[in-house]
């Protein structure tokens, strides 16, 4: 009769405590009447309660059905009605046996052990609760019902069967229905010994049992110890007095002060926040103690029983120190905490630290043991107590995670990041679309209206729900759709914007607007935004896409700027090696110096030129060159989705294409051939012979060491001249010639590079349009096969024209210095090979280097062949020194040089105005080039007139016009029309043997004579005045009309 009697005893005890109850015992014998009376008194209260509980039950509709309602009604009646009715009621709803059992009160003893209320049906919950209530309330004024109550209780619990697990037992009652009411026992708060809350609660239980055994039960209902509330214990009881009574004698509880918890706050007491993230396998944790304090670790295995876990760490091991220790020469020096880094076993072995490889019994995996520590794959495995690790609120940074990431794994999912870590506080903003993530309203969508601390007010999108709902921010998560344009507001990608392309739980993948790369971010870290930003593009001195030097030999392009570092694509061709780099690890920014390089076909490529990768891993990729560094190109291919579109390739693996090289591909073969095979490559640069002349790869630097030195010109028209350097730039020198009292400018180095450069420049429209072009005339006949493509009519002379050369050498029009310099720098090898070309003969003894065969140029077979005989530089040559803006880009069109006789590039024929050759004559002083006034035309000589669009006609020069042009009478005998012709429109007619000639250039200009014979390009002329025989260049002879 334990339980029932206990309850009975409870009452007794209560009576003892309550003075009033003393009387109750007396009245106890009279049973029925007082009870009825009492019940009537109570009626009102009951009704009230009834209503309340009914409301409650309506709320929890699952919980109560109609029968239950009825039951409730019955209960009401039952309270007023005699006991018979109770039984009837019981038999109506509950099984018969139970009813019978309760009928016979004697049998109750047998069932006492089954007091446990497991089997209670739902309908009874209200009942049983009230049945406990009721006796308490009336006890004060009425005691007669005690026995009755006893029976009542017996009847209730007697029916229970232990094994009868009712479905409804743990029914999903809405918690709301269980809210405390005034009828419920109250919660009282008492102080207790700090740190002994749990112990106090458990001891209270023990005390209760002990007291019960002594038949002095305590009247408290429960004792609650909260883990997070130190020094307090809650006790549930109806009366403060009971609490004090219960606490009596408990040494860890101070019951002097007992505080009532307001009803409204009662639920808060019990609504304990869920225990922090459970430590489980693959949970990220941080170590709380030791040298690994604060380090991120991954749980490998956890033993909750022993409260231990095996964790995986990035080792902080000083191998040197360990080795020293093992060898017994521990210097006992206090060492700083070693930096975390992965350890390779080979490295350990190299230090002769003994390594054991053992199989772990539990997992069957191999571990390496050394120094009493366990390692695997470079990680350190450590067994720790769960107390020494912290799993709460771990937010691993990406850097940390990457260290744990195996090469194969990818993405945050693989990192096993718990979604909880993805949640941050204060993530919601007004207007955000959110979804309820937990609770009854799960999956409800809404729009944030207001955020107040951690409460978020949302307006539900459901039309049946009106008004604003309030949630804790942890109950919500942001809602995004694929295709939304968002901005990242936190984390390493902060500031970036992009479009959502994938949503996977809390991890959202964006397609960044700037880099066109996928970015994984947490949904809490992004907000919807139409803004398009590039994210951060600058950090410190470095900007996105800068070329920077990482160390002596490593360069890289910044492909992403992050919050506190960069992602740098290293300059390793064919491999996309991206490294995270902190600003302080960058040595310097490499400034663009208009570098150039050569592609597969030796085309010069420079920054912004579009190239296509023709071989290797990136074959087919194409885009503009962003950076050049030592033969490596950084190309930006917008269709390349990695590394911000950047790729790094060898220049030799690329092929230039696109607008800047139009027309270039055609002459490629010619020029290639020229560059690589032509044996007659000759350079015209000034080459200095003064001793110890500093000769860097790029020629002269502008340094004062050069200036003032005496040099000797090695090539070109001034070959052999000595002079003093008055100025020097990277690629040019200005030399004051000793014998000429002139200052000339020349390339300071054998100008192979320069020459190629010029050639290429001429090809490039971008340069052709510019004023630079005139400064880069090709000065070698070898050039024109390529570049005269545009001037089919004059395949040979273009390149040889003096004007260009002269201009090039003209001190007043210095050459573009940087060109050749770059060339040199970019192509050191080219440079070298060219300088060593045998054809490069500084001391070309003969004056006709161009006699050398120019393959493919057809040089020898042309009428101009005769001109290859070095002749005296003629006046016409100098006349071209006039600043005629020779525009290679305008083929056929006369150059527009107002006021000065223009020189028509399209001059065919082999008249001796190939000053190029003349100029090449080492013996030729080429003074003429410095006499702008001079022209080659002379009265009476026969010329071929070529007007654009007209057939060539012969004519005889009659007189000079003040503007530099000539009046020419057409016809072989001068009988035709008189026309005005510029010098560029006419050509000398090649005289034949015994023809009367006039010398048009050179020191004998103007002299008349007779051509006695022709020897190659030279003509033997007998001068009329002196009867001297002179050997002159054929190109300087004009036939005189007969």
């Amino acid at each position: 009769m334990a339980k029932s009697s206990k309850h009975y005893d409870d009452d007794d005890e209560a009576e003892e405590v309550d003075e009033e109850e003393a009387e109750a015992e007396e009245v106890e014998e009279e049973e029925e009447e007082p009870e009825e009376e009492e019940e009537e008194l109570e009626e009102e209260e009951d009704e009230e309660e009834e209503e309340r509980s009914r409301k409650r039950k309506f709320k929890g509709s699952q919980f109560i059905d109609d029968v239950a309602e009825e039951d409730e009604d019955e209960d009401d009646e039952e309270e007023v009605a005699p006991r018979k009715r109770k039984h009837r009621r019981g038999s109506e709803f509950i099984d018969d046996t139970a009813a019978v059992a309760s009928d016979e009160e004697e049998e109750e003893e047998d069932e006492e052990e089954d007091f446990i209320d497991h089997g209670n049906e739902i309908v009874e919950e209200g009942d049983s609760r009230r049945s406990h209530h009721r006796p308490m309330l009336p006890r004060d004024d009425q005691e007669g019902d005690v026995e009755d109550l006893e029976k009542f209780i017996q009847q209730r619990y007697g029916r229970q069967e232990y094994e009868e697990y009712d479905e409804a037992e743990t029914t999903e009652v809405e918690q709301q229905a269980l809210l405390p009411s005034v009828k419920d026992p109250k919660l009282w708060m008492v102080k207790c010994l700090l740190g002994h809350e749990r112990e106090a609660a458990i001891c209270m239980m023990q005390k209760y049992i002990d007291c019960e055994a002594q038949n002095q039960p305590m009247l408290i209902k429960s004792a609650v110890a909260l883990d997070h509330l130190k020094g307090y214990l809650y006790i549930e009881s109806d009366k403060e007095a009971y609490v004090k009574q219960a606490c009596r004698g408990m040494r860890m509880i101070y019951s002097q002060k007992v505080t009532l918890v307001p009803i409204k706050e009662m639920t808060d007491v019990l609504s304990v926040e869920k225990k922090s993230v459970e430590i489980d396998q693959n949970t990220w944790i941080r170590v709380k103690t030791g040298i690994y304090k604060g380090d991120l670790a991954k749980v490998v295995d956890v033993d909750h029983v022993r409260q231990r876990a095996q964790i995986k760490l990035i080792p902080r091991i000083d191998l040197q120190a360990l080795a020293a220790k093992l060898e017994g020469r521990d210097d006992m020096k206090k060492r700083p905490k070693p930096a975390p880094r992965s350890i390779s076993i080979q490295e350990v072995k190299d230090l002769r630290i003994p390594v054991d490889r053992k199989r772990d019994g539990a997992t069957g995996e191999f571990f390496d043991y050394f120094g009493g520590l366990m390692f695997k794959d470079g990680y350190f495995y450590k067994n720790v107590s769960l107390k020494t690790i912290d799993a709460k609120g771990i937010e691993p940074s990406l850097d940390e995670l990457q260290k744990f990431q195996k090469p194969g794994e990818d993405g945050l999912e693989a990192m096993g990041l718990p979604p909880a870590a993805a949640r941050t506080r204060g993530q919601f903003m007004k207007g955000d679309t959110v979804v309820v993530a937990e609770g009854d309203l799960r999956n409800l969508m809404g729009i944030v209206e207001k955020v107040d601390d951690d409460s978020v007010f949302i307006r539900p999108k459901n039309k049946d729900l009106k008004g604003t709902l309030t949630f804790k921010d942890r109950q919500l998560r942001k809602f995004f759709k694929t295709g939304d344009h968002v901005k990242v507001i936190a984390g390493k990608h902060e500031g970036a914007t992009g479009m959502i392309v994938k949503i996977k739980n809390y991890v959202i993948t964006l397609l960044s607007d700037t880099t066109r790369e996928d970015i994984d971010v947490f949904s809490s870290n992004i907000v919807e935004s139409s803004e398009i930003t590039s994210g951060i593009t600058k950090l410190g001195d470095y900007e996105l896409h800068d070329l920077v030097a990482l160390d002596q030999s490593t360069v890289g392009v910044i492909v992403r700027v992050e919050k506190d570092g960069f992602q740098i694509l290293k300059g390793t061709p064919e491999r996309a090696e991206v490294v995270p780099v902190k600003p302080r690890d960058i040595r310097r920014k490499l400034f663009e110096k208009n570098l150039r390089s050569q592609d597969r076909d030796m085309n010069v490529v420079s920054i912004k030129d579009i190239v296509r990768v023709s071989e290797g891993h990136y074959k087919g990729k194409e885009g503009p060159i962003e950076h050049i560094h030592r033969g490596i190109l950084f190309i930006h291919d917008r269709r390349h989705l990695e590394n911000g579109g950047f790729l790094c390739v060898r220049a030799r693996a690329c092929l230039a294409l696109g607008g800047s090289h139009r027309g270039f591909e055609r002459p490629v073969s010619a020029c290639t051939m020229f560059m690589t095979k032509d044996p007659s490559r000759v350079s015209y640069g000034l080459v200095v012979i003064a001793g110890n002349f500093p000769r860097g790869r790029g020629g002269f630097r502008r340094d004062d060491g050069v200036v003032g030195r005496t040099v000797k010109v090695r090539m070109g028209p001034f070959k052999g001249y000595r002079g003093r350097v008055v100025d020097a730039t990277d690629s040019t020198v200005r030399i004051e010639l000793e014998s000429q009292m002139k200052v000339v400018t020349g390339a300071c180095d054998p100008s192979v590079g320069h020459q190629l450069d010029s050639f290429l420049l001429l090809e490039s429209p971008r340069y052709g349009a510019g004023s630079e072009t005139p400064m880069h005339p090709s000065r070698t006949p070898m050039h024109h096969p390529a570049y005269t493509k545009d001037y089919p009519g004059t395949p040979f002379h273009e390149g040889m024209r003096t004007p260009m050369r002269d201009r090039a050498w003209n001190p007043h029009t210095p050459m573009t210095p940087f060109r050749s310099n770059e060339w040199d720098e970019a192509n050191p090898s080219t440079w070298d090979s060219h300088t060593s070309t045998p054809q490069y003969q500084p001391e070309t003894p003969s004056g006709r280097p161009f006699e050398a065969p120019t393959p493919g140029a057809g040089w020898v077979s042309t009428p101009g062949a005769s001109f290859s005989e070095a002749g005296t530089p003629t006046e016409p040559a100098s006349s071209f020194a006039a600043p005629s803006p020779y525009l290679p880009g305008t083929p056929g069109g006369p150059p527009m040089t107002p006021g000065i006789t223009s020189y028509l590039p399209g001059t065919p024929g082999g008249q001796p105005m190939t000053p190029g050759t003349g100029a090449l004559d080492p013996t030729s002083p080429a003074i003429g080039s410095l006499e702008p006034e001079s022209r080659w035309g002379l009265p009476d000589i026969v010329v071929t007139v070529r007007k654009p669009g007209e057939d060539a006609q012969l004519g005889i020069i009659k007189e000079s016009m003040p503007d530099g042009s000539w009046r020419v009478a057409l016809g072989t005998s001068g009988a035709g029309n008189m026309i005005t012709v510029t010098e560029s429109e006419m050509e000398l007619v090649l005289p034949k043997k015994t023809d009367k000639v006039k010398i048009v250039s050179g020191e004998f200009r103007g002299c008349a004579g007779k051509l006695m014979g022709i020897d190659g390009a030279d003509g033997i002329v007998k001068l009329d005045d002196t009867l001297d025989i002179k050997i002159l260049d054929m190109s300087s002879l004009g036939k005189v009309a007969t």
Partner: protein
Amino acid sequence: MVSHAAQVPTSFGRELRVCLRCALVKTYDQFKDSGCENCQFFNMDKDHDRVLECTTPNFAGVISCMDPTSSWAARWLRISKFVPGCYALTVTGELSEEMQAICEDNKVRYVPRS
């Protein structure tokens, strides 16, 4: 004679475990020796592995429930139908599928406590 009440935990430290179904708090050894008073069908006392399967050390808060039937707290915590004893306020973790099936076999509805 207090046979109806659950065993009172014999320690207060980390040895404590909680029944995943009923949140009863006892030590590991107690579960091992006498099983869970509310969930006898788990037969933890007979099959000791079940102790690990059906209980967890991850819980927060302890409530000593002397009179579950009349206690509001017990009702609120859904332990009012269980035997008096010490229970956890919150339990982390859920029963495994297998154990849930056992609940079903015994006509006990399992509602996760976490």
